[in-house]
């Protein structure tokens, strides 16, 4: 693997952690918005009857997103370790290969063959683990898009329900707005994670 490609992989994996940290914050904001909405809906009583079950949905979506992001964070940490291992093993293999070239004509030049073979196997194993881990992470990132998409639908429903809430219209519309914005932010950040991972060559 060339040095630039390795550098890009390190940057990609590190940037995922940063993006996910932002997603986590936004998911927590949604959770807070859900709590606010619940309080407003409770005060509004009959006028916001249709809004009350929506607040529970919003809360569930926030929880689900937080759990998924936690799992992805753990995976991203593992992926970073695998990136380091792959880098080390590739570097080791390259250096031992260089030993084999430089040792030509040495009395014991053949003895390096076994080390080279084993280093090659370890390098390939690291590459396989790394690529499989990237594929799993991409699946997880796809999964976290689902609650974000659902949140946008809920935000649209919330606006409709808010329109029937009389003097609570503005407060509930603000809740719907905040859920919609948060869902958009999550969508964009996750999309950036996926783009970052596109530098990884997943072909065998």
């Amino acid at each position, binding site marked *: 693997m060339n040095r630039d490609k390795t550098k890009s992989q390190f940057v990609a994996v590190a940037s995922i952690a940063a993006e996910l940290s932002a997603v986590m914050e936004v998911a927590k904001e949604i959770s807070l918005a859900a709590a606010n909405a619940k309080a407003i809906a409770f005060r509004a009583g009959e006028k916001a009857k249709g809004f009350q079950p929506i607040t529970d949905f919003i809360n569930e979506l926030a929880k689900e997103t937080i759990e998924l992001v936690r799992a992805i964070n753990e995976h991203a940490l593992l992926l970073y370790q695998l990136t380091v291992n792959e880098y080390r093993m590739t570097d080791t293999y390259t*250096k*031992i290969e260089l*030993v084999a070239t430089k040792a030509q004509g*040495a*009395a014991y030049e053949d003895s390096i063959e*076994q080390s080279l073979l084993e*280093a090659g196997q370890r390098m390939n194993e690291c590459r396989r683990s790394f690529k499989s881990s990237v594929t799993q992470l991409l699946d997880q990132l796809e999964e976290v898009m689902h609650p974000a998409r659902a949140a946008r639908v809920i935000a649209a429903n919330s606006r409709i329900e808010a329109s029937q809430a009389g003097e609570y219209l503005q407060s509930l519309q603000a809740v719907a707005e905040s859920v919609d914005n948060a869902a958009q932010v999550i969508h964009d950040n996750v999309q950036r994670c996926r783009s970052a991972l596109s530098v990884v060559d997943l072909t065998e």
Partner: protein
Amino acid sequence: MKMTNIYEGSYQWIVFGRDENKPDNIIDTNQYMVRTADKCLLIDPGGVELFAPMLAAVLHYAPVDQITDLFASHQDPDIISSLGLWDQALPNAKLHSSALWEGFIRHFGCESIEYVPIADGGGVINLGDIELRVIPAHYMHSSANFNIYDPQAKILMSGDIGAALEASGAPMYVDNFDAHVEKMRFFHQRWMPSNQAKRVWIDSVRELDIDIMAPQHGRIFKGDDVNRFLDWFEALPVGIAVQ
């Protein structure tokens, strides 16, 4: 990589150094190997940049599976930053180094190699046919620092003590001690921190029977030049950065 036999008996001492392909901006180092019938000790095997030429040179003397022991006099990168690569290349090896530095040296990568911690008082390294003594040289310059003494070959591998900053391609042996002094002065005054540690080390080394004093940088001292070095060093104030 230049290879020079410095002792030939029932076993060998070889010094590796003056690598022509070494990048100019890293300090030149001497690596030593003690080769017995079926074992090898590599003393201060060097930095990561040096791994490939060093191992390729070693293969002129021994197969990979007989490189059984590594020794790091202290924790510096020019001494042992290649450890992570040896760790992957050697199927059965031990690293002998200070117990104090273990948690630091392991940062270079040490999964398959067994780390044999050396206590402050020193110890021995057994290579089957021969036994080498590990002599304390603390604060010379590292806070936990050791030399290797071979009583049979009468060789003291002195680590950074006796080191000189030389132009690349310098000869392996000191041939004019008086001319050599200026190449050693700054190195010792700046990198050696303690006059007290220096006195303790000189006293302990004067008790040894030494024919060859082999430092990790620069040239090797032979015969009377060993005592000339000890006398010169005894009179030299060190730790000058805080005086």
